[in-house]
């Protein structure tokens, strides 16, 4: 399966070259090329992509303005001719910074960085107050406060939110345990991670969150009780 990508670049020759590099890589599918931020933003807020090749200085808004306005955060590779942007690139947590023109070998190196272990498990961002999950072909932002609990479904997990919505993604409880904010979430069973702030009550070896009965294993119960504000 190929990664989807979009090129945001106002210099035609540079965009053509990037398309050529993407085609040669055989792992990227170019979904579009835009010459300014406004058009790119319009597309990206309606269509989710895995990777964004992004120029910085373009007519009107800059590439960084686009990142500020995106509703989700794909992997970003900056393409610019100004190395002064390297610091901003770091601040925006971009995957790589390609100075134009760049060789195909350099392009491949950037692609290799995309396959780093942290990016291959469908959880693409773990900020302290939210996470992004890959679900139904798009990256969906879930605020920690909106998540009630996460339930194992074999090779998948189900995120249940306060508005009773369910988001299923390819992942495991074991992996998520490492990724989620541990101040908010706690593993209570081999198949469940819960939001500690959402517990309504605990009875014996079960806890209840908004009418959902969740088992608490003997092994995890002491840790759960320690986290509660019992007076």
């Amino acid at each position, binding site marked *: 399966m190929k990664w989807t990508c979009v090129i945001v670049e106002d210099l035609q020759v540079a965009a053509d*070259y990037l398309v050529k590099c993407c085609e040669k890589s055989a792992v990227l599918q170019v979904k579009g090329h835009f010459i300014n931020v406004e058009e790119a933003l319009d597309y990206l807020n309606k269509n989710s992509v895995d990777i964004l090749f992004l120029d910085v*200085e373009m007519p009107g808004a800059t590439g960084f303005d686009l990142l500020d306005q995106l509703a989700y955060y794909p992997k970003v590779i900056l393409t610019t001719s100004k190395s002064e942007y390297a610091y901003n690139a770091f601040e925006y947590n971009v995957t790589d910074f390609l100075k134009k023109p760049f*060789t195909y070998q350099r392009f491949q190196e950037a692609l290799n960085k995309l396959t780093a272990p942290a990016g291959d498990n469908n959880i693409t961002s773990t900020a302290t107050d939210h996470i992004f999950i890959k679900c139904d072909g798009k990256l969906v932002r879930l605020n920690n406060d909106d998540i009630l609990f996460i339930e194992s479904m074999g090779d998948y997990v189900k995120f249940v939110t306060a508005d009773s919505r369910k988001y299923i993604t390819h992942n495991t409880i074991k992996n998520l345990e490492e990724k989620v904010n541990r101040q908010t979430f706690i593993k209570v069973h081999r198949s469940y991670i819960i939001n500690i702030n959402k517990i309504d009550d605990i009875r014996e070896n079960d806890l209840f969150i908004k009418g959902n009965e969740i088992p608490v294993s003997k092994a995890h119960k002491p840790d759960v009780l320690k986290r509660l504000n019992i007076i």
Partner: protein
Amino acid sequence: MNGANFSKKFIFNENIDSDYLYSLYEDDYQYIEEIFQTTLAHFNEDLNSIKVAYQTNNISELKKAIHKIKPTFGFVGLPLVQNICKEFEDICQKATSSNDLSSEYQQIVVTLAESKELIASEYNKLKEFNSNFL
């Protein structure tokens, strides 16, 4: 970039850094021709943006226009011209009006015009070269 034509050898103009071009495209001369063609197709528009910005004393737009055209020269094997653009961009950064950079502007306009001629000439040679191998 497909490396399919390694037996061919095109002699680039001495002002073009052919090693640099080969590092980008290997010896895919068809593709190099496309790059030169695309560059020429947009050159006048980009050059005109520079001239209009200068004439209207719009330094901010002048910086943007020179910044945009700058990497073009790298793509066609003229990294020295790319550097000249970079220097002019830096000068623009400090300038407050067109008058502050009139001599540098005159120089760069000449450099850009000469570069365009060179690119056009190389494009025609490449086109002929490639047509002989089709």
